[in-house]
């Protein structure tokens, strides 16, 4: 079991290293000029040559990657081309917002989605199932940004019920936080709730069909106990595997939602950095996202280990 955990951690580290290399490669293959991006286009050819060398752009890519990786390991992500501040500081301001949005959205969509999924599975074929499943299918097929724009127009611009933009942490100003967060959180979590609900339903129905449920029934247990002890525990195990993938989805979705509601998070920062060829920020953003998602997958697998005895026995 310890071996398995160490193994998984090793795999996670390996993945992060590979992602870092691919990111570095891709960003540096962009058809944009880093020298102009950093110093503007009004520089002489001589200056350009000097700066080109200063940025090590004349060196082979592997060398530059090594250099960058060494600095990153020391905690130095470079200087943002756009803000002229250390990347760590720029990201530090924004990552909290994105992390907060993603985690809260996950915390909302999983329990809610699972609950709805259980209801649809237990009441399968009844009206509750029909209505909820229809809604889940509908919302699951709507992209987050479409929902965001429509909601923004309806509730913020037409009705003026809620603010259209901005973000405040709950510990700074709670009522303001709630008013600002309702819309983005709704848009961000809707797909998650629908997705988790659908998955839970099919996983529960799979568990209900199993022979051991028939065994449980033949023991004369109450229907409640059968659902709780035998169906739910087995049916919800596969749902845990979704957490990693869902979080990745939500981080992706937050790029759009942050932009629509003008929330100063990492999503906004990332898009800005691409537009202004801010290479260090771009790399750092991708790395942070990769790290968040890898850790989410790692946690998922460890949770799985705790819930399903079959994994640790293998």
């Amino acid at each position: 079991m310890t071996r398995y955990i160490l193994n998984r951690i090793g795999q996670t580290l390996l993945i992060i290293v590979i992602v870092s290399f691919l990111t570095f490669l891709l960003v540096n293959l962009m058809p944009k000029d880093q020298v102009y991006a950093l110093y503007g286009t009004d520089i002489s050819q001589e200056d350009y040559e000097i700066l080109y060398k200063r940025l090590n752009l004349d060196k082979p890519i592997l060398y530059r990657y090594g250099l960058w990786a060494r600095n990153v390991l020391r905690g130095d992500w470079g200087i943002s081309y756009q803000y002229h501040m250390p990347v760590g500081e720029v990201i530090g301001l924004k990552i909290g917002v994105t992390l907060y949005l993603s985690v809260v959205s996950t915390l909302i969509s999983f329990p809610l989605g699972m609950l709805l999924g259980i209801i649809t599975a237990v009441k399968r074929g009844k009206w509750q199932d029909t209505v909820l499943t229809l809604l889940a299918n509908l919302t699951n097929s709507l992209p987050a940004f479409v929902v965001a724009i429509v909601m923004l127009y309806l509730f913020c611009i037409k009705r003026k019920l809620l603010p259209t933009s901005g973000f405040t942490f709950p510990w700074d100003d709670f009522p303001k936080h709630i008013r600002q967060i309702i819309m983005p959180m709704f848009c961000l979590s809707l797909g998650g709730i629908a997705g988790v609900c659908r998955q839970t339903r099919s996983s529960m129905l799979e568990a209900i069909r199993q022979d051991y449920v028939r065994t449980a029934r033949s023991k004369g247990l109450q229907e409640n106990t059968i659902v709780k002890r035998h169906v739910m525990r087995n049916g919800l195990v596969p749902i845990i595997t979704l957490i990693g993938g869902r979080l990745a989805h939500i981080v992706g979705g937050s790029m759009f939602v942050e932009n629509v509601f003008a929330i100063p998070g990492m999503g906004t920062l990332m898009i800005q950095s691409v537009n202004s060829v801010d290479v260090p920020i771009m790399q750092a953003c991708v790395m942070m996202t990769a790290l968040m998602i890898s850790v989410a997958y790692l946690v998922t697998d460890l949770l799985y280990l705790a819930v399903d005895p079959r994994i640790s026995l293998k």
Partner: protein
Amino acid sequence: MDKLVEAKNLVTTFPYYGKRRLTAVDNVSLELRRGEIVGLVGESGSGKSVTSMSILQLILPPGRVEGEVHVEGMKGNMLDYGMNSKEARSVRGGKIGMIFQEPMTSLNPILTVGEQIQENVITHLGLGKEEAKARAIEMMKAVGIANPETRYNEYPMQFSGGMRQRIMIAMVLAAEPEVLIADEATTALDVTTQAQILELIKDLAVTRNLTVVIVTHNLGLIARYADRIYVMYGGHIVEAAEKYELFENPSHPYTRGLLTAVPRLNDRKDRRLIPIAGMPPNPAELPPYCKFYDRCVYREEGCKKGKAPMVEIRPGHFVRCCLSVEELDAKRAEVEAQAEAVPEKHISNEVEIEVKNLKMYFPLYRGLLKRRVGDVRAVEDVSFTVRKGETLGIVGESGCGKSTLARCLMRALEPQGGEILFQGKDIAHLKERELAPIRPKITMIFQDPFSSLNPRQTAGSIVGEPLKINKLVKNRDEYDARVNELFRLVGLDPDYRSRVPREFSGGQRQRIGIARALASEPEIIICDEPVSALDVSIQAQIINLLEDLQSQLGITYLFIAHDLSVVKHISDRIVVMYLGRVVESSPAERLYENPLHPYTKALLSAVPISDPKVDAGRERIKLLGEVPSVLDRPHGCAFSSRCQYATDHCRSEVPQLRDMGDGQKVACFLYNN
């Protein structure tokens, strides 16, 4: 004797097309008395499982159960209480416990076995957690589980199939029920394990004064273990009687048919099986009159008038047939006179295939880098010869290497060592190109007629494929003629050529599989469990077909199966395998009359004979433990860990096959002098 459970006029229906409902159980009445073992026997679709589940109210809506179920100590009709009522639940699990067929899936994989046993105790005996745990451990001990205190905290996947079935029994009996229903509880297990589990149930029944219902398709099991028998067909009980009465005077045409359709260990070599014509009934398409009419050899026009009543022909012996006993008995001689003789065999002295010291190992990988850490020695040092035109039976329990052996002979696998001499030529290590001319000469019939045929190919193209691949026909006309000929050869109408496998029944599909194997005019057909997936009445049709084909075409068969009765019936010689090695080889008759190896003896004694009088007189040999995994094969003789005669010699050295005369060879130190 007092009645514990009585079911009256049970009718169980399920929704079918639109508003129609199909009747799975039709007017079934039965009673269970204290302390007896009742057999409920029937083929698939006979309604035997649905009957037992209906009594327990385990049929979920939209299925519907009507009729009456009376349970001793409970007032009124149990069905009136509703399936989730307190009363129904106290009977279910409390008064009547049930164990199911699949030990692999019937236990909850994420709860420890202890928790699952304990759950039953707490629900029905109302004990506290600690007491329930003590009782659970006591029950685990009672069903023969070593170290119950530690194993209490283990999960189902840490137990073997036989051990899981013991856990199921412990779980059910922990709540002190008075009736135990075993629904095909041993069907998925190996024969020796099956015998162990049933002996255990029988012992527990005696010590606890338990009523047991054995639901099965296996007549032999019923003959050995049951006191009273209900025979089911098409949702009806067609015959009910005490065991000896039933086997001596089987009266319903279906019961009679079953008894002559099933091969028995004590059969004469030249007995021809008499199959029941047609297919097992589909509950959705049963006629409103006698359900057996379409397949009955005794039928008369009068049978179509309506459902036959249940008639008591002798005290305690009930039959549901339109004909009277006198009519049935009068017709019996006529029916049995029609039995055909076994077709003649032509066995030459020429050796068709010779296997010498065959070895097949599979590498075992471990770790991140998938390092090779050892071998699974699936087939180890196997040698035998098969003469042209004869049938060699290969028997053994799961994991003995019989299927791997078949795949080596087919050269689907390349063996690690040894020789396979086909007509004198070693094919063990030939390259694919050199094998091409040999491939059509050795073909195979597979176990599962459902998954071994491509569902999207028509029957005609399945059968014709070998003709095309091996370029055995010159043109379209020749191809069509040959495919039609093959269809007729296996008893299928060539008009069915354009149908797909889904449109055939199990038996018909197996015929397609046989036609495919015959297409390339093979010299050898390897039959890997060809009848084990089929219903008993269909098995006889296929076995007879294989026998006929052999006598017509002079093919050599290698017949692989775990069912000793079937193997003995069809084979001329038999090879017994245990954990990858041959332990005994012998002419079929001789193996049954004079088995030498202790494993062969145990295997034979574990197979019940469907005649209670003969079966009662046989020696029973109980085996210790279960078949070990090939991965930890004991040192020396592989069987030494379970053999009661094992000595230190057996545990240190592997015995070689020795000729004991009369064509019998055995690998055992007991016969070394």
